[in-house]
């Protein structure tokens, strides 16, 4: 099965078809892609099922998407941020 090519702040990340963005980042060894507003702490996946909102990421310019729920697509541009 062919891999999908995504980027995180321009850096290439690959994903298997059907995987979530959060799973692809996990496979790439990325554990954090957001910093918190109050204390600037790093955050990534926590609940894994769309409940906690720790994993927010900007996807193709749309902010505050839950990485654990968004399906990876070829060419997707992910950006870290400080939601």
């Amino acid at each position, binding site marked *: 099965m062919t891999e999908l090519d995504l980027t995180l702040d321009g850096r290439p990340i690959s994903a*298997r078809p059907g995987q979530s963005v959060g799973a692809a980042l996990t496979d790439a060894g990325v554990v*954090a892609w957001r910093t918190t507003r109050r204390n600037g702490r790093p*955050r990534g996946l926590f609940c894994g*099922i*769309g409940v906690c909102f720790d994993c927010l990421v900007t996807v193709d310019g749309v902010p505050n998407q839950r990485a654990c729920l968004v399906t990876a697509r070829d060419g997707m541009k992910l950006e870290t941020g400080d939601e």
Partner: protein
Amino acid sequence: MSETYDVAVVGAGPAGLAAAVTAAEQGLRVVLVDAGRQPGGQFWRHPDESVPSTDESRGQHQWRRFTGLRDRLRALESRGSVTRIAGHQVWFLEPVAGAGAYALHLTPTVASEKTPGVPALVTAVRLVLCPGGYDRQLPIPGWDLPGVMAAGGVQALLKGHRSLAGKRAVVAGTGPFLFPVAAGLAEAGAKVVAVCEAGSPAGWARTPGGAVAVPSKALEAFEYAAVFARHRIPLRTRTVITRISGADRVESVRLGRLDSGGRLTGLARADLEVDLVATGWGFTPSMELVTALGAATRVDVDQSLVAVVDAWQRTDVDRVWVAGEATGVGGALLAVAEGELAGFAVGRDAGRPVPDGGTRRLQRVIRRGRAFARAMHRAHPIPAGWRDWLEPETTLCRCEEVTVGEVCAARDTLGATDARTVKLLARPGMGWCQGRVCGFAAAALAVPPGRDLTAADLAPMSRRTLAAPISLADLAGDDHG
């Protein structure tokens, strides 16, 4: 507006799937709404069905039960008896005045994954709510570091995406769910350095008939024992994580020992080096839809707020039934039985002849399952000493970064004596997740030590204005789709 369905089922997990197919097979027109894109819920989460795979069932239990339900669902869908709306959340529920029906307001779970043709609103005469739940969490110093995950989330990554959340893991908290998570990690290639269970095995011995009453559970336990032996996974009972350390991700954990009363008695001499902490303390049912309708609730043996239902899964609100974790955390097979019974119950309500023997059998299965769940909860309580290892600067609310100290100050110096006041003063549970993650711990911290939690303590933390985050367009006009 489109047709009014005979039944709307919310949730396509074990309970909702069973409810939807059972109701539809009796000739009722069913709409089945689920936030996920595929049926299965949490227990039967599996890889994307649109991608060909030869090992769909890897890591699953009772998989044939699932494929049986899925086959029936597909057949009913193709006949037009069930309309399945996947990838959509119900963000608001209300009775339609004078119409004898309920309106369910829908929004795509992922904004960019809109399905063409899905309405913003569906109506149904009857409701079967099967919203399941999520891992229950307690704060631990350092639990906001990346690499700390809910045990269920680790499982979801494995089952749904074949992703391994870490290479050296510790699995900790309480409850039988820690076993499949540890086994899943080890089978996928991670080194599980310890499973820390706060309870003690003696807990089961005190409740005769618990585990043995449900044969499939004994079998599962046997399977896990084999996996644990094969991968040399150490099980440490009466053990908790008291601190998680790392610079910008998890690097190590400190373990503590509990006495038989659940109080901390000592710390391990050396920390364990890990890159993944999978943690959970049982589950918290999703109660926002149940409470939005004003249905009666109670506090279950595990201190979760759950819906009150009768012997037919019916709530005290007209034409509303609840099945699965929202009536009490009890596992997937109990959820299936409750869903099936609810399916028959709505059929009966609609005047369909209902098989007496079949429903009596289901009621027996449910009674047995509930007895098992009570024994399980008693053996795996939240340890009495869970506050012992907290520090004032420990994060309680991960969203708003409210600390344990701030919540205790609201209680002790500002005089708040209940969760609602603490929530107003210190604002835990007011962020993105609306208290889903910290709600239980915040409610428990808010009450004076030693007092048991009541429904009035838990309700403010499980009530949500909106059941899901929605766009302004949804709020303004309901006319996307």
